[in-house]
């Protein structure tokens, strides 16, 4: 892994994280985070779609007429989303049902189109692919953190395995939509504070 790839990962996972820095992909981050398994599948789905969409966009970027590039990107993204949807339906029907419309809605996740447009359009395929994996992971990690707290407090379990015992009183609030809003806001708040400390030490973080 060379310096540039490391830079891509550092930006996507922390400094320029799609969820808590760019506030993208919030809708699904709020919706599927009541269970860790759903968040994991959603995160993996997004990593797959973002990485391969960016790769494809980057491969054909020199042949794509500029004024129809968004149409092409949407087409590419939707094709990969359909692949994920079919794959889940065929091999993980229970998860497919639990995620419901959100698998199909990966297509509207701003992270994918945002990265295709801002990164893949101007960079070679390898880095575009890496950027896709990095951005997808940045999203997946935040989802897992939110889901960790929500599932732990809301059900007393992690990945469906009970860890807090029978005596635990579940916080119903945590598995309902407000729980997601609270958690997301707390994460944005904490990361913002930590980011500001970095700033004072190193003299400013440049957004990409």
């Amino acid at each position: 892994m060379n310096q540039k790839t490391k830079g891509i990962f550092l930006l996507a996972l922390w400094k320029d994280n799609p969820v808590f820095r760019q506030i993208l992909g919030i809708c699904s981050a709020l919706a599927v985070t009541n269970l860790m398994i759903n968040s994991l599948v959603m995160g993996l789905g997004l990593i797959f779609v973002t990485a391969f969409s960016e790769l494809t966009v980057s491969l054909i970027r020199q042949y794509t007429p500029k004024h129809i590039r968004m149409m092409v990107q949407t087409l590419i993204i939707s094709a990969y989303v359909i692949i994920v949807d079919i794959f889940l339906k065929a091999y993980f029907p229970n998860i497919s049902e639990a995620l419901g419309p959100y698998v199909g809605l990966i297509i509207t996740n701003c992270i994918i189109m945002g990265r295709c447009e801002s990164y893949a359009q101007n960079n070679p395929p390898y880095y575009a692919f890496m950027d896709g994996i990095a951005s997808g992971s940045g999203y997946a990690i935040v989802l897992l953190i939110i889901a960790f707290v929500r599932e732990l407090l809301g059900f007393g379990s992690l990945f469906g395995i009970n860890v807090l015992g029978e005596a635990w009183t579940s916080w119903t609030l945590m598995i309902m939509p407000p729980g997601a809003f609270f958690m997301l806001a707390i994460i944005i708040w904490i990361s913002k504070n930590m980011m500001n400390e970095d700033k004072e030490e190193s003299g400013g973080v440049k957004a990409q």
Partner: protein
Amino acid sequence: MARKKKQIVYPIIFMIIVTSIFTLVLAVINELTYDRIQEQSRIKTQSKLLYSLNLDFNNNSESIVSSYNTYITEKTINDYTYYIAKENGEVLGYAFQVVGKGLWGQINSYLAFDDSFNQLKGVDFISHSETPGLGGRIDERWFVDQFKGIELTPSENGEYLIFKPSIGGNIDSISGATSTSKAVRSIFNENIQEILQVKEEVINESKN
């Protein structure tokens, strides 16, 4: 002029090529997984039938298929497809597949009766297109489970299911989903009435 023409033709050709490639890929994937997805949805439907009849099964495909094969015989009468659940030659119950008009589309469900048609054994919804989060909540267990064990004695106006808090009410409707609740109630009431007219035939048939 010539240049302008080129700019229109090239993007169109480009788009056609990209679209054909992705359509081809998706068509192949769809073809390869078609049987598997059909199989999964068949198992899902079978598990719903078992659930409506209140039969025990573990939530994995082998257990569902084996329970289904042990208990269930499929029959038809008039327009109904119905299923007889038998254990060691003794009838446990009957489940009828009923279809009716919901708010947005068809509501397709199983309606299960006990061996003498005195009680509802349970219901489950196979498919519907109600609003997610509102009418879509008819899938939730608390709603489905309240149909278990309801006595089939009609009220004055010939209805079997009445929403609380009306006099003689026996089920709760879903708040915020009045149209769906009403649709479900009328589908069930109408079908119960029709099914009870053929109950003698069904009972005789099951003795063979």
